[in-house]
């Protein structure tokens, strides 16, 4: 706890933590000292000189933003002289300032100008110098414009970019009164700016403004501001949406609230346009004679209910299955799984988590009893060492990455393990570049060194691992076989780097792991994560604050969907369906006979698709998923869907998958409904309705209820999303203490078992969630991949995501501002390989595997190793999943998206 000190400001006695910023303390206590260059999130700059005060015992004036409070400090913040100095400073500023306003931005300077009476020209002492200054305008950025004539040179944008977002792109060009902001070497568009817009948000005068809705926004016509959760990735950033004429016209980060404290990435700030896209689904569609025909809700629901009932009656309940959605709310997902279990009477419900972190969750559940990230997003800044493996975190979790970059600035050690260069390598102390698919060998090799050097945590092994050193010796027997020489042979990582990485991780006072899809999306995904956990356990880098393992989640509700039971094996709150007691508990809560609940685990995502192929599943209900693009072995998926008897797709847009549907239902986007989601650090966050749904679109949970009703199945009655949440909290013990009022201002991290519980920032502090309360080691051997590079398919294809697009791009590609940053597929190929094949940068190429082929453009870069290729998978016209296979990891049923043998040739 920081010490509290007492100070006096203008006679008012004030208490504050020692070392707090004086200006902030004053403002927190309602003393409105002016100041334009200071911002809560930034280091003090001392540029505007408006925050002058007098400090008892010190000569002259001091800047309150540049002082920290000390016990007994006496401050005068308002007197005639101080105010006169402030007026003068503003008067000076006006001499170089363009005061015009188009009423699209809030202007902190204008507010002060009025406050000091300088809006009256006769109170000003100088004429304008502007005409001599040649203030430039830079409108080259796709998302923003900078106008130097409105710039007061306060440094806030520079620091927003450097200190908050860790990008360091902005600076001043020139000196003195003629200086102005430049991005990179001078032209915004050509700089490394990726459009997060932090500078826009922190600019006090509208010198940097966004382009989006420039000609629409009128601040006095904003009808409301709505705070909600970003619909894209699993960071769960809190947005404040400005609504004008029923439309979203601006998105800002919410300051002072976790997880993002005002920060956003380009998607959260500019990616809201899809909501009002012309191509939204607005009415139910029924396929008649091969054509989609608009229909009424009644007709569509009737048809769906009849077909579901008919197939269930004819082929048995196991002929039905559903895909739930990580893009839908907890309330939607909860009702969806309840629907499947009560209306389909089986457990055939899964969603795309199976395709991203199923292996991670499987391994974590087995080893620790919880499948969620153990730490808070802010811990990414404060941990001493970060081990990032198979995770391009700067692009996939941009706001989490801002915390990492801040950590880096304060001396955090960063270890990156990735077969491919990622932007985080720029910040890393060490980068290990193993060959694709050799992770287990690499991790065993690291453990070999850790054990040999005695860097293990003996206490942890004895006290917190099941069977202590007995289990450890079994692990050691396995890792003994991975000497540095052997490990280098398999992974091609040099031994000195292995040693360095092992040393840094094992000996850091605190260390956290961020694991990603590079680890999980393999046929040995579960083993990969076991191995990672083994390393984490024997070094004792878990079970304390700022230590642990985290699999950041790709979509905004991947975490929540599983939490609330969108799972073939678990009911809400991770309680297995095969357990009798659990069935009794759920049947009581749902008020149905216990027998109605199927004790048999259901099919997983890809198993469902395979079952459709075999003909055992005949009807599929898809809510907000796009398996044609997201599932492996695309041709196989399409074959299945072409032949399925009855397919219902409920979505906000027509998708590659809805083409094959028999009925398409128009659903609501996340901007159009109330509800909750759970983000990557288990924080349950509110979604709030900001705009109306288009046409006849309906909330997803309402559609589910409608179908159930028509089928004659009672799955409960709810007036609104909050009603559903109340039931979720009863069903899901880890959500037990959460309700809408408690998370109105800021989300709560589960587990939160009761109303007085504050939520849990770090998991496993006292015990693990296994029956014994201890962690379990799972020694694993490296196994060679079944799929190998061959003469015919000599390359290994890796795949992944990029910053400005999202998932199957159904949403993100509907935003101009996101597309300008990259809307085309490409394949990365090493210059040596490219030279051998006469592939030049930009050339069209064909990539083919035994399963399918695609066409894309070559990018010749050394970001990939020779013999390996990489493609972003967002672009359905060049579908990477045409190449991938559906051979599954036996334990988690995840597919190996990161490893396909392919050939590449000039088209």
């Amino acid at each position: 706890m920081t010490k509290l000190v007492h100070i006096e400001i203008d006679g008012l006695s004030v208490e504050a933590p020692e070392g707090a910023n004086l200006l902030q303390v004053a403002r927190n206590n309602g003393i409105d000292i002016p100041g334009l260059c200071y911002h809560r999130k930034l280091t003090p700059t001392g540029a505007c000189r408006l925050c002058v005060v007098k400090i008892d015992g010190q000569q002259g004036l001091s800047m309150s933003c540049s002082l920290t409070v000390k016990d007994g400090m006496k401050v005068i913040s308002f007197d005639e002289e101080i105010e006169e100095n402030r007026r003068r400073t503003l008067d000076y500023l006006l001499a170089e300032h363009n005061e015009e306003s188009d009423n699209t931005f809030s202007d902190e300077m204008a507010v002060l100008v009025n406050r000091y009476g300088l809006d009256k020209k006769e109170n000003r002492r100088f004429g304008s110098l502007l005409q001599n200054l040649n203030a430039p305008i830079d409108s080259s950025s796709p998302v923003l414009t900078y106008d130097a004539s409105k710039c007061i040179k306060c440094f806030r944008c520079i620091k927003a970019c450097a200190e908050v977002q860790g990008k360091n792109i902005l600076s001043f060009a020139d000196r003195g009164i003629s200086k102005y902001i430049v991005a990179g070497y001078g032209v915004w568009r050509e700089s490394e700016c990726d459009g997060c817009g932090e500078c826009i948000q922190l600019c006090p005068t509208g010198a940097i403004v966004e382009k989006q809705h420039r000609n629409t926004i009128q601040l006095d016509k904003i009808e409301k501001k709505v705070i909600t959760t970003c619909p894209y990735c699993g960071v769960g950033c809190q947005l404040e949406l400005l609504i004008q004429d029923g439309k979203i016209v601006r998105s800002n980060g919410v300051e002072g609230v976790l997880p993002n404290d005002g920060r956003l990435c380009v998607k959260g700030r500019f990616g809201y346009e899809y909501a009002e896209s012309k191509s939204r689904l607005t009415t139910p569609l029924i396929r008649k004679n091969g054509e989609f025909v608009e229909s009424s809700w009644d007709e569509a629901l009737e048809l769906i209910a009849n077909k579901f009932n008919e197939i269930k009656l004819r082929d048995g309940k196991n002929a039905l299955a559903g895909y739930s959605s990580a893009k839908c709310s907890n309330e939607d997902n909860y009702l969806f799984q309840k629907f499947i279990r009560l209306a389909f009477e089986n457990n055939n419900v899964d969603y795309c988590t199976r395709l991203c972190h199923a292996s991670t969750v499987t391994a974590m559940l087995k080893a620790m009893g919880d499948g969620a990230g153990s730490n808070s997003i802010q811990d990414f800044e404060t941990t001493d060492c970060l081990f990032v493996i198979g995770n391009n975190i700067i692009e996939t979790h941009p706001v989490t990455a801002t915390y990492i970059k801040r950590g880096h600035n304060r001396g955090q050690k960063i270890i990156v393990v990735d077969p491919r260069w990622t932007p985080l390598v720029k910040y890393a102390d060490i980068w290990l570049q193993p060959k694709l698919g050799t992770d287990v060998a690499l991790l065993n090799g690291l453990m070999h060194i850790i054990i040999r050097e005695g860097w293990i945590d003996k206490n942890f092994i004895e006290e917190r691992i099941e069977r202590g050193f007995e289990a450890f010796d079994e692990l050691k027997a396995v890792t003994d076989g991975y000497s540095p020489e052997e490990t280098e042979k398999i992974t091609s990582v040099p031994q000195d780097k292995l040693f360095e990485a092992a040393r840094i991780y094992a000996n850091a006072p605190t260390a956290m792991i961020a694991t990603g899809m590079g680890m999980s999306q393999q046929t040995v995904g579960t083993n990969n994560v076991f191995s990672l956990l083994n390393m984490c356990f024997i070094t004792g880098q878990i079970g304390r604050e700022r230590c642990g393992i985290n699999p950041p989640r790709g979509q905004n509700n991947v975490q929540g969907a599983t939490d609330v039971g969108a799972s073939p094996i678990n009911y809400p709150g991770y309680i297995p369906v095969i357990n009798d007691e659990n069935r009794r508990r759920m049947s009581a809560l749902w008020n149905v006979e216990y027998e109605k609940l199927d004790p048999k685990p259901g099919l997983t995502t890809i198993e469902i698709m395979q079952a459709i192929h075999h003909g055992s599943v005949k009807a599929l209900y898809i809510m907000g998923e796009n398996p044609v693009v997201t599932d492996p072995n695309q041709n196989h998926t399409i074959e299945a869907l072409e032949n399925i008897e009855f397919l219902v797709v409920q979505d906000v847009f027509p998708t590659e998958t809805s083409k094959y549907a028999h009925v398409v239902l128009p659903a609501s986007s996340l901007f159009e409904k109330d509800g909750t989601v759970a983000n990557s650090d288990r924080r349950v966050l509110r979604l709030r309705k900001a705009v109306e749904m288009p046409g006849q679109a309906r909330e997803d949970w309402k559609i589910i209820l409608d179908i159930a009703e028509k089928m004659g199945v009672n799955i409960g009655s709810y007036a609104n999303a909050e009603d559903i949440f109340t039931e979720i909290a009863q069903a899901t013990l880890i959500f037990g203490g959460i309700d809408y009022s408690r998370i109105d201002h800021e989300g709560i991290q589960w587990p939160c078992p009761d109303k007085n519980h504050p939520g849990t920032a770090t998991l496993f502090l006292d015990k693990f969630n296994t029956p014994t309360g201890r962690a379990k080691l799972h020694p694993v051997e490296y196994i060679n991949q079944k799929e190998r590079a061959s003469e015919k398919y000599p390359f290994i294809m890796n795949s992944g995501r990029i910053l400005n697009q999202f998932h199957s791009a159904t949403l993100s590609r509907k935003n101009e501002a996101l597309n300008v940053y990259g809307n085309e597929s490409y394949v990365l190929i090493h210059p040596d390989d490219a030279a051998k094949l006469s592939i030049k940068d930009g050339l069209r190429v064909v990539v083919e595997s035994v399963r399918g082929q695609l066409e894309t453009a070559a990018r010749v870069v050394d970001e990939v190793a020779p013999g390996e290729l990489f493609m972003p998978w967002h672009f359905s016209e060049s579908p990477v999943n045409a190449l991938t296979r559906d051979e599954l990891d036996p334990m988690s049923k995840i597919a190996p998206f990161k490893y396909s043998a392919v050939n590449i040739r000039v088209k």
Partner: protein
Amino acid sequence: MIQETKIGLARLGKIDPENINDAIALGAYDGLKIALSLNPDEILVRYESSGLRGRGGAGFPTGLKQKFTSQSCAECQKYVVCNADEGEPGTFKDRTIMQNDPHLLIEGMLIAAYTIGASKGFIYIRGEYNLSIHRIRKAIADASSNGFLGSNILGSDFSFELELRLGAGSYLCGEELTLLESLEGKRGYPRIKPPFPAEKGLWGNPTLINNVETFVQLPAILINGLDWYTALGTSESKGTKIFTISGRVNRPGFYEVEMGTTLRQLIEVLAGGMKDGYSFAGALLGGAAGTFVDASLLDTPMAYETLKAIGATMGSGAIIVLDNTTDKIDFLQNILEFFKHESCGKCVPCRIGTTLLSEMASQLKTNPEILQKMIDEASYMARTSLCPLGQSPVLPLKSFERYFATAITNV
């Protein structure tokens, strides 16, 4: 008859500056040897009692600065930085020292480093000083190969590495906190003070930063003893000071004299008086950030306390002599243009104030009353500016008004 007393320039002309053996033969590194035989705390006491004050302009007691840095943080890496940016107009003393006796600077820095417990040092030198750069480089190499730099210097436990870094031609980069930013590879903007460099300097570590001329006073104090040193100068200004005299005098140049030598002695005796046909009309002491004096003050001893008493400054030791043909208003305007040009623009009062002052100066000839307004603005700038640059224009302006007010009314 006034004579020069030489400490910083003692070996000037007597050695080949590029030959370390020449310098050693005349006592170079003797002070270091004495230092290494003493306990750092003992040395600290000596420098504190020596009365030596910084020669970079502000005149801060050097021993005190060493003590603060030394005591600031026991486990931290500490640095010694030499400010050789010498950007003050009319000043060229540091260049003279570095060109003629580079080993003396290195020795001074070594002693300072040993005293405060630093193992790494930087010389931040003005980029245009080609000859000095060349000679310092050579001297660092020679000192290293002779065991004066590097690990276990002269067989002791003391190790010290020294690097030369070139400045990029901004006046402001001579300001110590801006200099540190620049050394860290950042743009030259001043930092907020406090913390002072002694507490958080280079990369946040305790840093002793002194001017070239300050460092070169250190060896002699150990070699010749405190009694000898404190006998030089006046009650509050000890040792010697190099003054650089420019203008229409017969022998413009540098002169190292005891503190307390009068302006008249410097100009009329050492610099040989005014050139034929010119008469003394005043002087600007201490460079652009300095103060004007007129003939009535010629007998003022050049010492911190006596200058202060008449509202003048020692500054860097620059003496720019004005004569009967100097257009004083043009001269003032040049100074204000200089500030406008060198203002980094970080803070509002200086960024805009220096522009306003130079605009107003252009009206001085037609509108003499504006001088009052200029002083008023400059005083406001002095109260509110972030760094000493913006606080400085008031110095020449006020002293201009005091001594040369008639210059304007007579236009």
